[in-house]
């Protein structure tokens, strides 16, 4: 009995708090990863601070690190109640890669000092983190990275170039993968260091993408200093650290398809943009059948996320599923963009200007941006490598190249 009462009471208390604390001025605000808490929106800062005080920015984190120590079901209730009033949790976006990736990895590999110095400011959304992983010549083959870190006693001196450092231009801290021993085999000479972005010798340049302006940057290290106190995990074992970090990334991308904001369904788009029969069905049978296939894929993806969550409660090993889910989320999301464009016809190929409405222009930008989903966080092909080797146990390729 008390077990069924407690969740209700918890929900009621969350609801009351959210209703009393979410600034209504933010209800029409659309949050994004590029939000910069530059003080131009005082209510956003107020809301961030209130959530941070509750520990609800990263609600499942322990209280000593700025979280609220909630269980996953409880955290879900918090999210649902915030959504219910049209609200959002700005902290994961404001912390950049902090809440989803850096924080969980510090919790696992960090020293007590590192946890105490970094985790609370991530959980509160006060400090934004970026990640310096990829390089111009180390993309899918990340372990061939070249950024050099020379040991100078209590610190390293970094030289090299990182690319796709998302949000680097507005971040305060960076976690970077660097080569600390060039003589070892490539995966064995890598370390994970952390450094503030305002250090001398750190320079960022934004990258313009096919979809227009983007949060991505190139980041240059020119004799930049990283303290040894901020070496995460043991020296030359950065590859294990980053593998774990990337697992957290995949986990955070598995539900990408459902997106955050309310999107108009393809069925509704169809009613406005293409001919429909008297019974409401799409007249173009070929287009209709492709939409059905997509909606079935979407539903299969959602059911699989649900099934894997249910199985996790039965203590089944689930992290293996992350690659499958990342690829299926990618498929669903990219297919939806393509179908949206096709439904809009010539209204779905606009770049800017008054001939196209905001939804049409956003759909086009989203379609272009969406091409990145199957590249970042381990490309579609890299995920398939992981599935075939780690899950199915197929042997390493013996072919050259």
């Amino acid at each position, binding site marked *: 009995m008390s077990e069924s009462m407690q969740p209700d009471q918890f929900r009621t208390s969350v609801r009351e708090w959210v209703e009393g604390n979410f600034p209504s001025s933010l209800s029409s605000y659309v949050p994004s990863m590029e939000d910069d808490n530059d003080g131009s929106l005082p209510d956003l800062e107020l809301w961030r601070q209130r959530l941070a005080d509750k520990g609800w920015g990263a609600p499942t984190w322990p209280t000593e690190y700025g979280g609220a120590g909630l269980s996953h079901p409880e955290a879900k209730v918090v999210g649902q109640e915030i959504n219910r009033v049209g609200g959002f949790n700005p902290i994961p976006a404001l912390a950049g890669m902090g809440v989803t990736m850096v924080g969980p990895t510090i919790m696992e590999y960090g020293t007590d000092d590192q946890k105490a110095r970094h985790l609370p400011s991530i959980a509160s959304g006060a400090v934004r983190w970026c990640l310096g992983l990829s390089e111009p010549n180390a993309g899918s083959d990340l372990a061939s990275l070249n950024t050099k870190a020379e040991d100078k006693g209590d610190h390293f001196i970094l030289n090299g170039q990182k690319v796709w450092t998302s949000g680097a231009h507005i971040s305060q801290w960076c976690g970077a993968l660097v080569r600390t021993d060039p003589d070892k085999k490539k995966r064995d000479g890598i370390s994970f260091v952390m450094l503030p972005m305002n250090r001398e010798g750190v320079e960022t340049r934004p990258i313009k993408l096919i979809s227009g302006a983007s949060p991505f940057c190139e980041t240059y290290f020119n004799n930049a200093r990283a303290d040894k106190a901020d070496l995460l995990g043991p020296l030359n074992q950065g590859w294990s650290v980053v593998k774990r970090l990337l697992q957290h990334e995949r986990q955070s991308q598995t539900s990408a398809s459902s997106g955050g904001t309310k999107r108009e369904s393809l*069925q509704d788009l*169809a009613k406005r943009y293409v001919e*429909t029969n008297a019974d*409401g*069905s*799409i007249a173009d049978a070929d287009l*209709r*059948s492709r*939409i*059905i*296939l997509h*909606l*079935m*894929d979407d*539903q*299969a*993806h959602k*059911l*699989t996320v*649900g*099934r894997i969550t*249910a*199985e996790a*409660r*039965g203590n*089944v090993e689930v992290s293996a*599923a992350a690659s*499958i889910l990342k*690829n*299926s989320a990618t498929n669903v999301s990219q297919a939806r963009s393509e179908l949206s464009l096709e439904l809009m016809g010539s209204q779905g190929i606009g770049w800017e200007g008054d001939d196209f409405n905001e939804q049409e222009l956003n759909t086009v930008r989203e379609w272009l941006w969406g091409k990145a989903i199957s590249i970042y966080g381990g490309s579609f*092909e890299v*995920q*398939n*490598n992981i*599935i*075939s*080797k780690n*899950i*199915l*146990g*197929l*042997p*390493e*390729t*013996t*072919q050259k190249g």
Partner: protein
Amino acid sequence: MAALSEEQSMIRDQAKSWASEQAPVQKFREMRDSGIEQRFTATTWAEMIEMGWTGILVPEEYGGSELGYLTFGVVLEELGRQLTASPLFASALVGASAIILAGNEEQKQSLLPKVVDGSELLTLALDEGNHHQPALTALRAEKNPSGFTLNGSKTFVLEGMAATTLIVAARTSGKAGDSEGISLFLVAADAAGVARSSMQTVDSRGYAKVEFNNVEVASDGLLGSLDQGFDVLESILDRARAGLGAEMMGTAAQAFDMTLDYLKTREQFGSVIGSFQALGHRAAVLFSSMELSRSCMEAALQAIDNGDDDIAEATSLSKAKMGAFLHEMSNQLIQIHGGIGMTDEFDAGLYLKRARVLESAYGNQAYHRNRYATLLGF
């Protein structure tokens, strides 16, 4: 695999070891080669009855265990892995569901205990044309002083030669294509005017064509309400489709396992072929779609057990997704095995043949995609 209860896990383990030890695909091959008309081995069927599988859906008051559809699916999946031939699906899932959903108390009492002990073997006689389209039911049932007179024909009747009672969808009013005017009847397979002939299908399983020539059915042979049989027929079919999804999963999963094993052992160009990225990625994609399809299949069975209101959507999703995956998997089973896969001596062909029959039974992919879209209102 869904988070199974302890009982469900036990039944799965029992089914897995029984099927692989007592009814492996080799048994199916022997049955095929023997050419027996009823298309299943009597001892195999007797053991299934012994293990209580015929009562999985039947309420306890009629002699069953009422463990539900997910439990039945767990058994069917294991049987699907070995292509085990039996009337379990036709009688204890489709037939029992029909009686449970549409039957009156008298019909339940007279038939359900016999489904459980195997003395009655039920089957649904529905399709008349070469595509599954329940509303096209045209077989006439005309009222006579003591009941009804049936005239018409049915095809692709599962276990039609072995069945003892046919559940016949018939038209009592309106015209073919109307969902109104369809009624269900219980007809003894040996009734005067019933003529059955065996169909030789590619999967070597039991199917029959059944002709009805002035077949007299007493009024207590009406199953469910007159003219209003379509909705309950769809409910029965959704249970059949969801169950078939589980069997399809088993067949596809076995095909996947055989393929994966071959990828790890077959050597060409001095390496095991599974080390070639083209094949590794193909296996990864197949495995991913197996996981995604499994979620749909299990969700349909769970929706039925929970009495959800979206059972129709869930089963069409399951049947379409399982159809697509089994189709692709059975083709890749042959392709990746290469020449050996083409030989009758190797089992791959048995799986391919069974795959296409399962795919088309109770509505193929196209049927269920269209139904799904219609249910979603576009």
